[in-house]
């Protein structure tokens, strides 16, 4: 079962001094040799004994990605019991992801949650009594990955991919109906039509992959939502963390009508901060969209910062916010402590494990605030690596789907019959479906009966 080479970032959070990318599986040393050029002459990783390292650089198409040290472990003397290379590169999200990308592009697959540990266990590197903790790790990582994947599904990329998938399913459905109901009036579908549909899809996928390569990397971080009813000071708090005036701050309720995003580093933690429209019932259409999106965003965020106004009593909307935060890692901020207290702070304390009292306007307790954020995030073990991997997996699937579609074109160009073409299309759909956990064949069959009037 372990014939695939897998890779992942093995150090936490990616903003430390160095990051380690672990590559495991038969052939992993050779794979890394394709990317790594040692500074010592005539030395490759394949020449190295186990437990030794080598200084050099990772190159892709003659471009130097980073200076690194590679350590080689030879089976069975490694964590997983397989051949392993650990690449120590410079820390920081950007470089680390670029090195990982190089390894994946060379043929490794993004590791599933807990997969290194799973292999270690299966290869007898662990005591039987550890099986339960291994299962725990896998399920915990699975949950984490699921959350990250859910997060990824909010992105534009995912929406584009979904649209592409729908288009392919439409073509596959037509082909299936045409094959399974030959004597009914299902319109004939020609190889040329399939070809043009597939070519369109390949073009769109190309675009999606290109966007992955530009700048996507810098956007990763712990998805953090600042929430609160209008004019409690959300934007001020965001600006405080971001260190600049980002949102429009006024005294008029509802100034922030959409989600504004900002990357903020708190020591080694990267936050992707979203300032949201205040939660209140509204008839203003534009603002309403903003509120809906806020609630939507909460479902997939990694951290919520709920802001309350010290100078006014708790409103229904405050209560509504508290209810919506159930189960989401969150911090409560009681803002405007410079004004007279009217808020029931004890109630807030009973609902949140972390409460910070501050006056954002006067910047008075920013360090306490930052430390609280760090504490919550460390406690939640929210790992930006999981996010990177979720994205890497998405990209991996898109590339596989694309190569599947090239096979479709090859088959058509070679003049092969449409049964072979259909199978190749379904393969591509399956790759895209894996992102959402759906099954292509079931969707196609369901679609046949929706789209075509067939059957005796």
């Amino acid at each position, binding site marked *: *079962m372990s014939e695939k080479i897998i890779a992942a970032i093995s150090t936490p959070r990616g903003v430390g001094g160095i990051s380690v990318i672990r590559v495991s599986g038969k052939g992993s040393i050779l794979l890394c040799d394709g990317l790594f050029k040692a500074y010592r002459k005539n030395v490759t990783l394949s020449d190295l004994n186990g437990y030794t390292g080598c200084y050099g650089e990772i190159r892709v198409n003659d471009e130097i990605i980073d200076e690194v040290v590679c350590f080689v472990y030879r089976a069975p003397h490694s964590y997983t019991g397989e051949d392993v290379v650990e690449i120590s590169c410079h820390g920081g999200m950007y470089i680390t992801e670029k090195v990982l990308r190089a390894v994946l592009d060379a043929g490794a697959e993004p590791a*599933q*949650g*807990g*997969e290194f540990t*799973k292999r270690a*266990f*299966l290869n007898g590197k662990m005591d*039987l009594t550890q*099986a*339960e903790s*291994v*299962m*725990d790790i*896998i*399920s915990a*990582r*699975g949950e984490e*990955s*699921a959350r990250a994947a859910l997060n990824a599904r909010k992105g534009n990329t995912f929406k584009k991919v979904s649209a592409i998938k729908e288009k392919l399913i439409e073509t596959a459905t037509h082909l*299936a109906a*045409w*094959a*399974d*109901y*030959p*004597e*009914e*009036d299902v319109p004939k579908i020609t190889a040329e039509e399939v070809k043009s549909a597939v070519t369109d899809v390949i073009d769109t996928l190309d675009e999606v992959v290109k966007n992955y390569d530009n700048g996507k990397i810098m956007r990763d971080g712990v998805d953090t939502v600042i929430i609160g009813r209008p004019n409690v000071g959300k934007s001020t708090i965001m600006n405080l963390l971001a260190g600049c005036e980002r949102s429009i701050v006024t005294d008029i309720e509802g100034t922030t009508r959409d989600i504004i995003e900002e990357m903020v580093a708190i020591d080694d933690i990267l936050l992707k901060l979203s300032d949201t429209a205040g939660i209140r019932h509204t008839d203003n259409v534009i603002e309403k969209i903003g509120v809906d999106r806020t609630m939507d965003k909460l479902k997939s965020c990694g951290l919520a910062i709920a802001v309350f106004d010290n100078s006014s009593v708790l409103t229904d909307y405050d209560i509504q916010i508290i209810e919506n935060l159930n189960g989401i890692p969150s911090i409560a901020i009681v803002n405007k402590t410079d004004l007279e207290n009217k808020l029931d702070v004890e109630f807030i304390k009973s609902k949140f494990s972390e409460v910070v009292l501050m006056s954002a306007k006067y910047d008075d307790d920013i360090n306490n605030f930052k430390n609280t954020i760090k504490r919550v995030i460390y406690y939640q073990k929210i790992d930006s690596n999981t996010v990177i991997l979720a994205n890497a997996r998405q990209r991996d699937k898109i590339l596989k789907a694309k190569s599947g579609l090239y096979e479709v074109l090859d*088959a058509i160009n*070679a*003049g*092969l*019959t*449409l*049964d*072979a073409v259909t*199978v*190749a299309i*379904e393969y591509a759909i399956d790759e895209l479906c894996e992102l959402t*956990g759906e*099954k292509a*064949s079931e969707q*196609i*069959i369901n679609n*046949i*009966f929706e789209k075509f*009037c*067939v*059957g*005796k």
Partner: protein
Amino acid sequence: MGYDAGKYDVAVIGAGHAGIEAGLAAARLGCKTAIFTINMDAVGNCPCNPSIGGTAKGHLVREIDALGGEMAKTADECMLQMRMLNRGKGPAVHSLRMQIDRKKYASVMKHKLELQENLDLRQGEIVSVERNGDEWIVETRLGSRFTVKAVIVATGTYLGGKVFVGDVSYESGPDGIFPATFLTRSLLKLGLRLRRFKTGTPARVLKSSIDFSDLEEQAGDEPVIPFSYETVNPLENTVLCHISWTNENTKKIILDNIHRSPLYGGKIEGIGPRYCPSIEDKIVRFADKERHQLFIEPCGADTEEMYIQGMSSSLPEDVQIDFYHTIKGLENALIMRSAYAIEYDCVDPVQMYATLEFKDLPGLYGAGQFNGSSGYEEAAAQGLVAGINAALKIKGKEPLLLDRAGSYIGTLIDDLVTKGANEPYRMMTSRSEYRLILRQDNADTRLTPIGYKIGLINEDRWNKFLVKQQQIKDELSRLSDTVFSPTIELNNILVSRGTSEVSSGIRLIDLLKRPQISYKDLTEIDVDRPKLPDNVFEQVEIEVKYKGYIDKQLAQVEQMRRLENRLLPQNFDYKSLIGLRLEAQEKLNKIRPVNLGQASRISGVSPADISVLVIWLSQKDKQ
């Protein structure tokens, strides 16, 4: 209170397409077998279309034959017209279909059952199935009680059958034969989860009342290709089918009367199949469509009854007469039998193993419509598997488990026992992810070795099979070893077929790989070609042309089978396994998959859950 009527190894309830294959297989494998039928004149009845095969169903018939079943041979014997559907769309979807003489089919099948050694065909409605220690007792309505080792339930649409025509409804099986009214209660008592499904059939019309003059004819394909690998006598097309269309008037009459439909009026509670819609369903669901196609098919050689395919309905009889008369050719049609819908009891198939034995009721098997499928071919395929497995178990042998990668039969059964059936299940080529290797042309290669090992394929046929396999092998190596020089003659052929010329020597196999080039194209220059049966050339050509795709699917199969080989215990409570998500625990406890492969196909079981199962299994192995 009944009387002791004796013992059998296997009792089969029902003598439809499932029951026939089940009974024959069990008897042929040496089990003393009884088939019980409600009516001796309903054995092997085709109460719906007078045809066997079709897309994916033709694959099933070929597979049944390759394993040693009977459906293909009888269909060949009763053939009226043959068509090979989907020619030109590729070998994976080529599908054989035959119009058959339905009366002859029934009587040929009945006679085969009567002649079969070890097999008793008996009239009697089974009213109860009870456990008796490790054995079972089945009781007929007249009170005879038989003690048996295995029971195969193949009750079709008879179980709790209820017919609907407009506002008229009555308890009945198909074709006016009485239904099985008592057995349901007995099955519920055993703990089976039952549900109600619905299906329907169109009217039969007197041939002489149809005006064929303006109707499009549909003739059979020549030469006729038989279903069975054992059929050697040439077959002939003897009938025509005809095509007509509904029109605006048909639509209007149906829509004006839709409130009188029991389905739309809410009287039918059963779930009907989407792929077998009644004409009122089609018109309501696809309101934009101006017309719907229908086929007029003869029911037999010595009857004037014609089957109107595509026009099933449960509207009242007077409405039926009106809308049938709107159709070109049917203006003066005399309806001999009205269309009707029928509702019946069936079981939730996730309660079964892929052997078709119930997980909690050893010795009890289900097959056919009772398992939630639809169609003669689907029924026969399951009957064969249930019959074989009942016999193998009684003989103390390993069960027959057909997987998705090896056959459509395996795919059908896996879908049923893993995903369940929310509506009557019909086989389609789209349902098989391995369809490039599961072709109707290679069913024998895939399954005859299994049929031989079980004991349903005789020596004579086995030897013929081996000869054919050897011929394929030899011809493939000849193709690899034969090299053609780049002669003008060769290049002329290539150019005329629209493919590129060659400038150096080329192997015959590489020429044949080109989609544009067929065996026939090379006849003149391939002077050393041996004389071989057509089906050998066909096999070789497909193997060569689709090699890349076939190899890719074979690699997927290998991966899938690795998961299939990791067996899961049957008496385990997944709730106790930490690390599985709640949804996975519940689904696994409900379906109790037999191996990791089946577990991975259950919706709601994630890859992380499978990883947890892998760790758990390997921990158990090591302990």
